[in-house]
């Protein structure tokens, strides 16, 4: 089982629930879910995620603003971050990657393959397999 630690930042409860189930159940990841950018900033120092899954469209601090703020926290200054966005916004994928995301995933997503997708992204970013996999 992998010990990858994934922070999910998503304001929509239905998506949080299914993402946590998919990442823990299939990937065996340690998952922390928070509902806002502000909660993410609080969670990062203690949880120390290996990867952050960050929703783009959130009330208050949106995904790009949250990423900017995260980069000012030592514990998250270079944590690979993946934006989670809707199909309607796929035209913005290039823009989102230029903001510093290592990848962009679209909603809807397949819960059965989410963990494998996250693993591939992490391994590509680090050029090494996930610990323990």
């Amino acid at each position, binding site marked *: 089982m992998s010990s990858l630690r994934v922070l999910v930042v998503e304001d929509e409860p239905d*998506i949080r629930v*299914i993402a946590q*189930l*998919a990442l823990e*159940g*299939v990937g065996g990841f340690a998952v922390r879910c928070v509902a806002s950018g502000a909660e993410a900033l609080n969670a990062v120092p203690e949880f120390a995620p290996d990867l952050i899954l960050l929703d783009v469209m959130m009330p208050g601090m949106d995904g790009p603003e949250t990423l900017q703020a995260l980069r000012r926290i030592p514990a998250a200054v270079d944590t690979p971050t993946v934006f989670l966005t*809707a199909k309607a916004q796929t035209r913005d994928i290039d823009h989102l990657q230029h903001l510093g995301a290592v990848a962009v995933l679209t*909603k*809807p997503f397949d819960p*059965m393959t989410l963990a494998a997708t996250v693993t591939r992204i992490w391994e590509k970013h680090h050029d090494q397999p996930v610990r323990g996999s």
Partner: protein
Amino acid sequence: MTSPSADLEAQLTSLRADYAALLPGKIASIEQTWRAVLLEHGDRQALKQLHRSLHILAGSAGTYGLPSVSDKARAVELYIESVVHCAFDPADAQRDQIDALLGALRAEVEAAAVCGRGKGSDPA
């Protein structure tokens, strides 16, 4: 011994059933927001709230194995997106178009409810 994927499938089936059961309420809430838009003569904030609700539904319904509901919600979302940044007059053809798209969304939810009775939905 069941595999992690089999366990996940079982839990997903349960989650999908819970989600489907709550879907009519989500649609009712969206329709209520649309009525508020009309009552407030196309109030931009109410329209943005409607857009956001549809955006959320489009993202979650497909993830919960209801891609056709997701597609219908996305269609309304995209239409509203196309009108929200310009002058919106709920008395003109835009109103009829949104009514029609919301009607199609409701029909899809009702069809999904009928198909989903007694069995799990197909995954996205």
